[in-house]
């Protein structure tokens, strides 16, 4: 064996040894510095400082921070953590570095809004965060959708949700359902006049048969929601004056409390129930109504009222 060949063999063996050694020590380093990436964030909490350090490559740095945000959220979520302390600053840094990183606002708002351990349980911060995204990207209708979603699902503020969907529906290119959502939220939140205006506009302007049919159902529901409380008020007045509950509409007509038998939007007479309550005859054909439902049925935002919704609503009330 020549000296050159033995040197080659020696260094080749040493190379393999060193590579194996470096990989093994790297694994040890990974264990030692498991959360180092995120700890560094604490040391650099300012997007301005990071902007200088990135030498102008702020987009790249923002992508890196967004990835770190997702990793952090994923790790904490996996641990079923109750606190997500680094999530708000990470999201702020990411979007300060790149205010047009729309994906960060969309998913970030969901991360922030959901209750722990699904999220940070901070819908207030989620709202501020998406509003920040909207200021930077006013032409992105989906951000308004996410804002409305946070108001609707996490904050149960239907009026604010309606307003968010309405603002988004005015953005050029917005999905037609944004108007539908705005109207539905207003209706569910008790803003019947706003809802009626929006549904009427949708009915007149849409070319989508399904949306138009939905608008008709919504307008019918609004009609019921107007009529039933009015009728119940008349019945209470009857009770105050006579001391009796009316047994039929005819009785009220004869005594001058009504001009004719009240009909629902389907053309069917309302049912006069004991105790002065009024119900519709076919609630399954009048989805979205909030008044006039048979006892045991709860109002539903999207579906035909049913027993399951009623139980769920009762449970939520208890909580």
């Amino acid at each position: 064996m020549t000296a050159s060949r033995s040197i080659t063999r020696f260094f080749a063996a040493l190379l393999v040894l060193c590579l194996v050694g470096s990989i093994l020590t790297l694994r040890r380093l990974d264990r030692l510095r498991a959360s180092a990436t995120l700890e560094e964030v604490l040391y650099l909490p300012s997007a301005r400082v990071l902007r200088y350090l990135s030498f102008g490559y702020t987009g790249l740095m923002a992508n890196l921070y967004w990835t770190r945000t997702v990793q952090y959220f994923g790790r904490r979520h996996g641990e079923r953590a109750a606190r997500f302390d680094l999530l708000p600053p990470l999201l702020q840094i990411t979007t300060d570095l790149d205010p047009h990183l729309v994906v960060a606002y969309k998913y970030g708002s969901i991360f922030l809004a959901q209750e722990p351990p699904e999220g940070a349980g901070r819908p207030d911060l989620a709202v501020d965060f998406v509003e920040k995204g909207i200021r930077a990207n006013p032409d992105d209708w989906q951000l308004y959708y996410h804002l409305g979603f946070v108001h609707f699902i996490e904050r149960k503020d239907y009026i604010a949700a309606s307003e968010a969907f309405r603002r988004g529906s005015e953005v050029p290119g917005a999905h037609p359902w944004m108007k539908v959502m705005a109207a539905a939220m207003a209706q569910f939140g008790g803003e019947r006049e706003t809802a009626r205006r929006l549904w009427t506009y949708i009915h007149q302007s849409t070319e989508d048969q399904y949306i138009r049919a939905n608008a008709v159902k919504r307008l019918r529901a609004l009609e019921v929601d107007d009529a039933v409380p009015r009728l119940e008020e008349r019945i209470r007045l009857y009770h105050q004056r006579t001391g009796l509950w009316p047994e039929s509409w005819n009785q009220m007509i004869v005594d001058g409390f009504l001009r004719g038998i009240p009909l629902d939007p389907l053309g069917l007479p309302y049912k006069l129930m004991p105790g002065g309550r009024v119900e519709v005859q076919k609630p399954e054909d009048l989805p979205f109504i909030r008044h006039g439902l048979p006892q045991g049925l709860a109002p539903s935002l999207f579906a035909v009222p049913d027993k399951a919704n009623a139980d769920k609503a009762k449970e939520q009330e208890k909580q």
Partner: protein
Amino acid sequence: MSARLASIAFNTFREAVRERVLYNLIFFALLITAASVLVGQISIGIERIVLVNLGLSAISLFGIVIAIFIGIGLVWKEMEKRTLYTLLARPVRRWEFIVGKFLGLVGTLVVNAALMAVGFFAALYYLVHAFDRSDLHLLAALYFIILQFIVVTALALLFSSFSSPLLSAVMAFALFFIGSFAEDLRAFAQMSEGAARWLTVAAAHLVPNFASLNVIAQVAHQQPVSADLMLANTLYALFYAGAALCGAVLIFERRNLK
């Protein structure tokens, strides 16, 4: 053998000094003096943090730039000037040439870093008027910076053993940049699936991990550096530099110098 290695190493050091490499110390002195005087006037409460971040980052970056620019020319220049043939005609083996060059450049960088460290501690003393126990952590950061130099020098030598200086510089800087985000790269690897996972895992293990060798931000906040980390980083840097150096030797051994 050790005499030949020492001779090559010493000559490499002398050549680097002759090439006015240590002139960077003047820039460093100016930078650190200006920082220590000015930082108190433009910020509140973070004077020490800024000085430590700036000083240690400058020591690290200056050294890495020197390591790359001198390292990529170590083999190429000797071939270009034809001094390599004279050298190899003597009883000097090729691997001794590579290892000697490596030791010489690392020695230059250590001396350079040590002089900068003296200036840095002087500036820090001027700013805070007294040292405390937590300032010992700064030495750990300096030690890690020297480990960075060892890895970068080995990589520069590896590239210069088979490539042109320009290409070697580009590759070395690219690897330094990627290596600074090595921990993110490994996180990406964990998140990917299938063949992409294997590829990213392999890449993540081959790329030098400069991220774990950078504790500047940590010591700027007077956070301690664990003995475990020091040991693991030392082993890692030696293994990685050893692998790169072996690669350089193997390539150079087979290189046709005619």
